């Protein structure tokens, strides 16, 4: 049954590539992300947060939940490394 893994992976890869072909192309001005989401952030970020850097305002205020998850991933990865290295050393 082990010979099944490679055909299944190839099938999965082909399925994913077919699914990504339906996304709008990068930088498309008619995509929903550039018509509804980007102008909202660009117009309202300075009056909402008073930070001139729109990237920091989006990362830490509008999408702060994702940054919380990212920091948790860094912390957990560090703890996992420490646990693995502790077993080998002492």
């Amino acid at each position: 049954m082990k010979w099944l893994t490679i055909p299944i992976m190839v099938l999965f890869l082909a399925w994913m590539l077919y699914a990504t072909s339906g996304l709008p192309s990068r930088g498309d001005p008619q995509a929903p992300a550039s018509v509804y989401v980007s102008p909202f952030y660009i117009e309202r970020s300075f009056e909402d947060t008073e930070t001139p850097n729109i990237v920091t305002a989006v990362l830490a205020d509008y999408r702060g939940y994702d940054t919380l998850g990212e920091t948790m991933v860094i912390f957990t990865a560090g703890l996992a490394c420490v646990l693995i290295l502790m077993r080998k050393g002492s």
Partner: protein
Amino acid sequence: MIGRYESPIVQVVCSVLIPFIQLFALYVIMHGHYGPGGGFQGGVLLAVSIMLSRLCLGKEVSHRKFPPKLAMVLASVGMLIYVLAGLVPMATGGAFLDYAYLPIPWVSGAPLRYLGILIVEMGIALAVFGTLVLVFDKLVEER
């Protein structure tokens, strides 16, 4: 594995450089509002200053200046700051991670969101700094 570097030139130059690296790291953290920078980049620079002291000044001096247990404490405190900045607004009436409801009495509105972003960036910097120094210390530890 880490011994004091033999050349006195390296020791003196590193001792002089470490506070400036830390100052620049604080500048990068604070300046994330106005240009490139922010919590992650500043945290890595802070960790680099401690790694430099571990490599050049030797194990005894460096462990006395910054003990390895302090790194884990600082990483956890950084995570705690970020999570508290999310939970405290829920207690005072807003949503999770809604910085406009942080209980700081003399600011409100958009400057309060500015302060909220700054608090969160400090938490991120501490978490990244503690994690990197912790992993480095475990890697070079001898039995």
